[in-house]
């Protein structure tokens, strides 16, 4: 008979809570920087000069065709030999940013390429600066169009951050590992951690779906495309 003892794991709730908070913190930092990097790269790939399009293209293809764990190990274990020593947390955030940036670039590019030419022409004919054209005219509706895909990608990166425990960043999966090493309740610890991940994924998705129209591409989305 299998005896499952969830209480032994739940007793260690402070560790789980800290881990979940850590996962959210890593993801929030990675999401803000990663989406910014992605939008910049998406812009470069959609409208930049040919050489820049090629450079960004190489970055996107390299990242999208290699596993996150290898990217993480390369940054954490590989870069110190070039004299760049990183803490596990910083290495995790950098890896997540680099990873999310590549996927977000493709998503943002799709949004930007969907902008009708007339909108660029209209904006320029109003003597808006190039920066104003980008931030006021093109990006808000472009981001609104691709926001669901962007949200999915952010959630995927958050779930992927479970791997960061492998370089001893103290996030949720690391907490679960710590707990099971104390009480040998491996299955229960990972079940509970997995359930927390599921809740985080649902919560983050709902939050971003709510926050996007309000804070990121707000006014434009409401006034129609």
């Amino acid at each position, binding site marked *: 008979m*299998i005896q499952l003892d969830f209480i032994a794991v739940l007793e260690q709730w402070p560790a789980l809570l800290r881990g979940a908070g850590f996962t959210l913190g890593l993801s929030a930092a990675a999401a803000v920087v990663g989406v910014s990097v992605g939008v910049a790269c998406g812009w470069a790939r959609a409208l930049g000069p040919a050489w820049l399009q090629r450079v960004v293209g190489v970055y996107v*293809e*390299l990242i*999208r*065709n*290699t*596993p*996150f*764990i*290898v*990217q993480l*190990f*390369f940054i954490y*274990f*590989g*870069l*110190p*030999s*070039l004299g760049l020593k990183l803490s596990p947390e910083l290495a995790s955030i950098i890896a997540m940013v680099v990873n999310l940036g590549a996927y977000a670039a493709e998503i943002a590019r799709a949004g930007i390429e969907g902008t009708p030419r007339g909108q660029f022409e209209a904006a320029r004919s109003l003597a808006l600066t190039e920066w104003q054209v980008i931030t006021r005219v093109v990006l808000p509706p472009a981001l609104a169009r691709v926001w669901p895909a962007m949200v999915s990608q952010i*959630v995927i990166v958050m*779930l*992927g*951050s*479970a*791997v960061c425990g*492998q370089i001893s960043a103290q996030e949720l*999966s690391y907490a679960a590992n710590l707990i099971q090493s104390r009480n040998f309740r*491996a*299955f229960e610890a*990972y*079940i509970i*951690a*997995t359930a927390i*991940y*599921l809740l985080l*994924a*649902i919560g983050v998705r709902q939050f971003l779906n709510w926050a996007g129209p309000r804070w990121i591409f707000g006014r434009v989305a409401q006034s129609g495309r």
Partner: protein
Amino acid sequence: MVDFSLWDIFRNLLLAARWTVGLSLIAFIGGGLVGLGLLLARLAKLPGAQHGVATYVQVFQGTPLLMQLFLTYFGLALVGINVSAWVAAGVALTLYTSAFLTEIWRGCVSAVPKGQWEASESLALGFSETMRHVIGPQALRIAIPPTVGFLVQVIKGTALASVIGFIELTKAGTMITNATFRPFTVYACVALMYFMLCWPVSAYSRKLERSFRRGH
């Protein structure tokens, strides 16, 4: 200490890449079969299938693959099945793949116009005949590009099996690093090898998608 040349590193990684390919194929084929079963259960409107499969998909898409691997590894051990890393990784990746493929294919089936279902029904075709002769072939055409694209996710997913001790490309990279103390070179080679595996598949999937769009 044994000296590793760059070629030695590359050669050993190349040998380990066999297991990455093997595990990917197992997960992809197994996941495809399970995913197809789930899809058919859903389409045939078996009692509880609609809800059950939707939950299944949400759980697998909403939790980290790493956790799924751990749970399979420790869960199988708990019910007394002696698990090697092979079995645990194969089972976990199969389930993971099936959840994604069944959802992708559901989208493809629902992209087939509704009139096709009605026409089949008016011809008194049964469920299996409808699937085999009417819906299946049309959905298959739509399904091929995203399915090939998902293969890339599966190949990358197998890298996580290294964490439960399955010796594939990533694990071999770690082991060689421990022997050579050249993490930069080794992980760059590992990444390059994944790229050589995944990039042709991505490019092929994109090509299929383009030619599919042109056809419509």
